[in-house]
C-alpha cells in the first residue's frame, strides 16, 4: 500500500444532496489522491453510493435531486453550468454493480465511447481495444472472440469488458459502484486482481458492501453513516485502530 502522499485529483467540500426536501448527504468533505483505491464503506442508506454518483453528476438524470457544495476535479468545477456532462463522464468513468455490456460484439463494446467521439481510424481503435482489454485483465480470454457478442461472456468477463470500455476513454478517475456484488467469488477475485493492477496508474473510488474487499484492495477507506462522513484514513488504520467508535462498531460487524 502506498503511504506517501500523492497529488490530489478530486477535492469535495460541504457536499449536500437533497431528494426533494429530504437532505441525504449532510456536508461531506473528502479529497482523493491521483493514484490508488479509496473504498467508501457504510451500511445501506449511509449515503456512500449517493455521494459516488454525485461525483460524475449521475443525479442530473433524476427528478427532484439538488446537489450543493464544491467539487474541484483537477481544476474543473464538476457542477459548473459550463461543464459538459458527456465530457465529464469520459474523464470520470463509472463501472456499475451489474455488468452492462451492450448487445453487440466485444470489440464494439470497448470502442463505444471512441465511436461516439468520432474516432474512425481502425489502427487507433484496434490499439484501444487491445490496450483496454489488457488493462482490464481480460484480453487473453477474449482476444480470439473479439467479434462475438459480449452477452455470451460470463458475468465476470462481462464486468471486465465493462471496465475495459471505461478505460478505453483514458479516464482520469474511475468510480466503481459495488462492481463485484453480482459476481461469484472467483470472478470477484479476478476483478479485485484487475483493480489492484490498475491502482498503480489510476485513481479509483469503490463503493463496496464487503469490508473484507475494502480491507484487501484499498489504500484508503472512508466510512459513511446516515449521510455523514464519519472517518477517512489509510485502510490499515481504519481496520486496526479507527478513531471513532461508530467506525469501530461497523468494521467489527456490530451493526449494518
Amino acid at each position, binding site marked *: 500500500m502506498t503511504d506517501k502522499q500523492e497529488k490530489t485529483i478530486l477535492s469535495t467540500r460541504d457536499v449536500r444532496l437533497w431528494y426533494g426536501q429530504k437532505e441525504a448527504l449532510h456536508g461531506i468533505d473528502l479529497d482523493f489522491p491521483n493514484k490508488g483505491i479509496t473504498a467508501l464503506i457504510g451500511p445501506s442508506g449511509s449515503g456512500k453510493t449517493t455521494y459516488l454518483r454525485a461525483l460524475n453528476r449521475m443525479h442530473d438524470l433524476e427528478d427532484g435531486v439538488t446537489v450543493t457544495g464544491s467539487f474541484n476535479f483537477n481544476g474543473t468545477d464538476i457542477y459548473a453550468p459550463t461543464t459538459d456532462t458527456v465530457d465529464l463522464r469520459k474523464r470520470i468513468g463509472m463501472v456499475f454493480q451489474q455488468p452492462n455490456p451492450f448487445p453487440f460484439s466485444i470489440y464494439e463494446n470497448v470502442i463505444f465511447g471512441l465511436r461516439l467521439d468520432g474516432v474512425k481510424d481502425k489502427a487507433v481503435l484496434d490499439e484501444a481495444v487491445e490496450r483496454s482489454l489488457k488493462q482490464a485483465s481480460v484480453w487473453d480470454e477474449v482476444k480470439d472472440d473479439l467479434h462475438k457478442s459480449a452477452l455470451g461472456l460470463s458475468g465476470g468477463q462481462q464486468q471486465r469488458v465493462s471496465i475495459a470500455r471505461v478505460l478505453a476513454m483514458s479516464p482520469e478517475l474511475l468510480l466503481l459502484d459495488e462492481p463485484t456484488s453480482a459476481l461469484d467469488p472467483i470472478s470477484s*477475485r479476478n476483478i*479485485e*486482481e484487475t483493480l*489492484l493492477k490498475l491502482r498503480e496508474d489510476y485513481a479509483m473510488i469503490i463503493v463496496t458492501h464487503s469490508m*473484507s474487499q475494502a*480491507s*484487501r484492495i484499498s489504500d484508503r477507506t472512508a466510512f459513511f453513516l446516515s449521510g455523514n462522513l464519519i472517518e477517512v484514513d489509510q485502510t*490499515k488504520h481504519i*481496520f*486496526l485502530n479507527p478513531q471513532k467508535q461508530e467506525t469501530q462498531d461497523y468494521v467489527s460487524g456490530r451493526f449494518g
Partner: protein
Amino acid sequence: MRRLFDEELADLDSSFTEMGMLVSQTIQKAVQSFVDHDREGARQILENDHQINEREAAIEKKTFEMIALYQPVTTDLREIVTILKAVSVLERMGDQARNIANSTIRVKGTKHIASIEQELGVIGEMVANMVSQVMEYYVKNDALGAESIAEANHKLSQSAAKVRTDSVNGMKENADLVDSAADYLVIAGYLKRIGDYTTDIAEWIVYKRTGKIIELNPGYNFFI
C-alpha cells in the same frame, strides 16, 4: 489480492529470518566478548540491542496489519501466528545476549578459570548454532528438524550443568575464584535459557507445518 498477500507474507518471512540471523550473531558475539574479557565488544552489544527490539516491533505491527486486512486462514494464518509468537522469543534471546554483555562489563574477578571459560565459549557457539539451525528449519518448513532441536538442547543443558559443577568446585577450592565463578554460573544460566527458547521456536515451526501444538522442552532439562 492473493498476489499482494503472498508478496507481503514473503517480505514478513524474510524480515523474520533476518532478525533470527541477527540474534544468532549477537549471542555469539556476546559470549565471545565475555570469554575474551572484551568490555568494548560487550558495550557494542548493548548499543545495538535496540535494533533487535525495533525489528520485533516492526514485525509485530506488520502481522497485526496482515491479520486485520486479509483475514488469513489455514496455513497462512498459522505462518503469521508462528512469526508473531516466535518473534517475541527472538527478542527475549536478544535480552539474554544483553545480560551476558552486562556481566562482561561488570565483571569483578581478577582470577579466572580458563577451562570453564573455554567451555562457556563452546556452549555459546553451540547455542548460536542452535538459533541459526532453528531459523533454517523455519525457512525449510522442516518439522522433523525442528523437533530434533530438543535433543541439541538436552546436550546444551548437560554442558551448562557441567559448568555449574566446575564453578562450584572452583569456588570451594579457592575463595579468590568466587567472583569469576559466580559469573560463570550466571552466564551458563543465560545460555541454557536461550537453548530453551530455541525449543519454543521449534514448537511453533511444528505448529506451522502440522497445526499441532507440542512440547519440546520436557522437565528433565534443569540447571540448578
